[in-house]
């Protein structure tokens, strides 16, 4: 009996396990990193009351996109396998199907549309960095905040909105590929509004993190450092 009790006791209900995004990964206590008061006194603006729920939302979005990003990682390898096996089958055994050919670019489409938000989280979308590199870390964060509000969010919302009818039309008529043996077409069209939706969410999350960082919060998830991608 005691053993059973101990067994139960040893596994306390841990909501954090199921909702890892709820786990505070950064300090919620404002840390003043920089003084902004003209007198030079360290000032602390805002409190945790306002930022905490926003940061929780930001962690939730990050968590979603991170996991979607992981799926996309595997799609790269799967696409390689499908493409190479398909090519070998065609020459070795004269077996070919449009379904396999289409599956390749379906996966590629998923990598592009769904991986973009994780790439944004990692701050790996390429920039023209001549001026950007001259800015202080603080200046870079401010530039990003302006950029997200002026460029990223409007563009993503607008394209997402434009692409909805494009998907819905296909969905409504239950569109299939026009190739013999092809795949159902609307899921891949759905990737466009979905991708831009996720990107909008991630943009909001990045915005929250950057605003919080400016207000003195310590945000370990913030990839403010930018490096040009390797070519």
């Amino acid at each position: 009996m005691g053993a059973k009790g101990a067994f139960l006791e040893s596994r306390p209900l841990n909501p954090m396990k199921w909702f890892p995004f709820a786990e505070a990964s950064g300090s919620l206590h404002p840390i003043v990193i920089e003084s902004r008061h003209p007198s030079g006194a360290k000032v602390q603006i805002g409190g945790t009351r306002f930022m905490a729920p926003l940061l929780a939302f930001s962690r939730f979005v990050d968590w979603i996109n991170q996991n979607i990003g992981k799926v996309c990682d595997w799609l790269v390898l799967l696409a390689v396998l499908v493409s190479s096996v398909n090519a070998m089958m065609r020459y070795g055994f004269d077996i070919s199907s449009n379904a396999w050919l289409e599956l390749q670019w379906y996966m590629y489409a998923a990598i592009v549309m769904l991986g973009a938000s994780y790439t944004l989280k990692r701050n790996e979308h390429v920039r023209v960095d001549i001026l950007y590199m001259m800015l202080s870390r603080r200046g870079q964060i401010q530039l990003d905040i302006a950029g997200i509000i002026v460029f990223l969010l409007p563009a993503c919302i607008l394209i997402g909105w434009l692409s909805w009818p494009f998907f819905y039309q296909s969905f409504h008529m239950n569109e299939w590929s026009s190739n013999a043996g092809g795949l159902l077409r609307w899921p891949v069209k759905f990737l466009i509004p979905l991708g831009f939706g996720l990107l909008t969410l991630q943009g909001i999350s990045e915005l929250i993190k950057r605003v919080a960082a400016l207000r003195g919060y310590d945000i370990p998830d913030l990839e403010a450092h930018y490096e040009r991608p390797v070519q």
Partner: protein
Amino acid sequence: MIPLEWMPALMFAGLVVFLIIGFPVAFSLASVGLFFGMISMAQGFFTIDFMQAIPGRIFGSILANDLLLAIPFFTLMGAILEKCGLAEDMLESMGQLFGPMKGGLGYSVIIVGFILGAITGTVAAQVIAMALITMPVMMRYNYNIRYATGVLAASGTITQLVPPSLVLVVLADQLGRSVGDMYLGAWGPSLLQIALFALYTWFITIIRPQDLPPVPRTLTGRPLLIKCMWGIIPAGVLIFLVLGTIMLGLATPTEAGALGTVGAIILAVLRNTQMTKMDKTAYAAGLVAVAGCLVAAYTVGMKTVPFRISFSVFFASVIWLCWRAWQDKPLHDLIVEGMRATMRITSMVAFIVVGATCFSIVFAGVDGNLWVEHGLTSLPGGVWGFLIAVNLLVFFLAFFLDFFEIAFIIVPMLAPVAQKVLEPVVGADAALIWFGVMLCVNMQTSFMHPPFGFALFYLRSVIPKSISSADIYWGALPWVGLQLIMVAIVIFMPITVTFFLDKPHGIDPSTIRIESAPPVEEDDMPPPSFGPPR
């Protein structure tokens, strides 16, 4: 009210301003397009229906694009090859082979740079690998430091130009030409480029022999031969897998990338893991089966039982070796790390195209293409004036734009004009190939010129701190000069590009042509046009 004639110029200015701010290019591009699209709608130049073309174009020419699908494949292949020691082996054997000549190490770096470029090649991987191995030797034998850094950076960069470079694939896509033709066109300039490099090295050995002293061999005879074979044969097999299959029309460039990745994984297994008896058997069986396939294909044909049996054996052997790669912990980690980086790079690159698509749809809507055409055709000097102006433009843009940005933003604007202007010189088919290869040669310089040249950054990160950055910068200059001479050669001697194109090359280019650029308004994507080459 803004007159329609002003819109393209305003858009172009907006593009420059929005990009230079430093926000990620993909989103800046998209918003500059959408922003001017909104203005145009307010002015009544077009309606919202016109903007509705954007999702269709994103879908049709980016997501359903079989050529851009090659990006993740080539990237992953590069990531795996970078770590599997192929560059090291080739450099060591070439260094042994050419070492005793004056400037021998220089020649070996140039040759290895070219061969590695013909397999895959990211500039980063190539420069780093070559510098790590060669630089210590060069320093020990008192090579001139500026020469050493220059030759390493330049030979690493040439991978951009040597087929099957990703740059050529992307340019082929943007110019709407076949990748196979693009490759054929690039052979001439890339061979000439290394010839120029070698010539320069030889020239230095004449005027300043003390700068490039000979290095004695440590291996001779049979061990040297084995070392050379071990360096060359795997490279040869991979070159065949990637380039051979494209040139023979056996695979599309995309599939060749995938096959090359599998080849790279197998190569990594053969070199880095402890092979069990089973592995060796599988490997040997695979080799025998390849020979069997070739014999069967040439004697009884491909759709016969003997061919299929040997192919099955080969297939099984490949699967076994790939499975072994997966079981090997370091290799497994390498592949996983590679695919992560690949995912982000693919998404990043494709999103530049998404942004560029938003821009170019609106730009075309306000007659921007006519504006560019008018501006470029009214230049003095006709064809040569046009080419020189365009190349100067690209050369200076390359100071602060990446290759991908130039390819996706600038090239689509220039392509229609280039087709029209260059047609009288080399004919309709070759015009854009010539143009594309020329831009490709030109864009090499973007890796090389101080202060933003990437090859120089990579070099800086791996060579000893005792070498000053000034030496790296000065060392790079003559090689930038050589690259520019090459641009001039390509401009004034189109034969360097068209030479291989005009010759009958045994295959019908149409079998490997992949048409991109599907119709804009069409909802349904065109069928994937890379059916089995017949």
